[in-house]
């Protein structure tokens, strides 16, 4: 439960996620810079946790979310600069339960992941 894939077009976010999670034993297994690449990396890297941006070129986060339930059992945290009610509702419709607004603090991300772990362990 510690392999993380970052799907985000920003090198800054990749670095921020890495800095937030690696000290706590998480392995960042990949960085996809658009949704299409993200789906390919999900298939090949089989991450446990995915951080998913919304605004990305080629394929955005909502389009990825729509395909996620078919392609992976990984838990997804939507990590977005946007957090309006309509967006959250759409993402929830695709099975996304966890949201974190950018900018975020390392503890916020760790908190979300710990929540996911608690849900899985019951």
């Amino acid at each position, binding site marked *: 439960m510690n392999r993380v894939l970052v799907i985000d077009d*920003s*090198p*800054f976010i990749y670095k921020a996620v890495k800095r937030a999670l690696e000290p706590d034993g998480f392995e960042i297994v990949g960085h996809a810079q658009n949704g299409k690449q993200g789906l390919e990396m999900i298939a090949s890297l089989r991450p446990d946790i995915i951080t998913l941006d919304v605004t990305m*070129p080629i394929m955005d986060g909502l389009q990825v979310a729509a395909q996620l339930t078919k392609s992976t059992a990984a838990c997804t945290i939507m990590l*977005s*600069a*946007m957090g309006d*009610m*309509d967006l959250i509702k759409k993402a929830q419709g695709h099975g996304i339960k966890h949201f974190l607004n950018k900018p975020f603090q390392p503890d916020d991300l760790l908190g979300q992941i710990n929540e996911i772990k608690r849900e899985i362990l019951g």
Partner: protein
Amino acid sequence: MVKTVWDVLTDYVEGAFCAVASELITADFSPIKDVNSSKGYRFATIINFVGQFRGRILVSCDAATAAKITTNMNFGEAVESLEEQCLYLAEFTNMLGGKITTLLNNSFRGSELRLTPPAMFAGNNLEVQTPAMRSTAYYFEGSLGSVTLEIGVEGA
């Protein structure tokens, strides 16, 4: 009284900018009336929002300010490549755009505004115009330098 998009932006934009600067780069910026110059090497990032109406968010600053902002974003390490500096500044603008469009979407339900991926520019004496769109410029100054934010909205 029913608030317009411009009323909401006027109430919120300066605070949103200062909040993102504080949270993301731990820098204090304050609104000022104008900046002295747009000469020299400058960076600009543009993010559009599209939905029931559309608009543009333009953030620009000089090279020295860009270097300080990106260094702060990069946890104190200088961002050397021009391309990466542009990408970091684009993420700054994306987060600001996210805050603004979230507020607009929540204030005007059904707007369905979404951000587009950013466009980035850098060059000498760079000036970017927002034609055919009502726009307002906001200026900020702080320990990292000065930043100009321009927002244009069409069809609101």
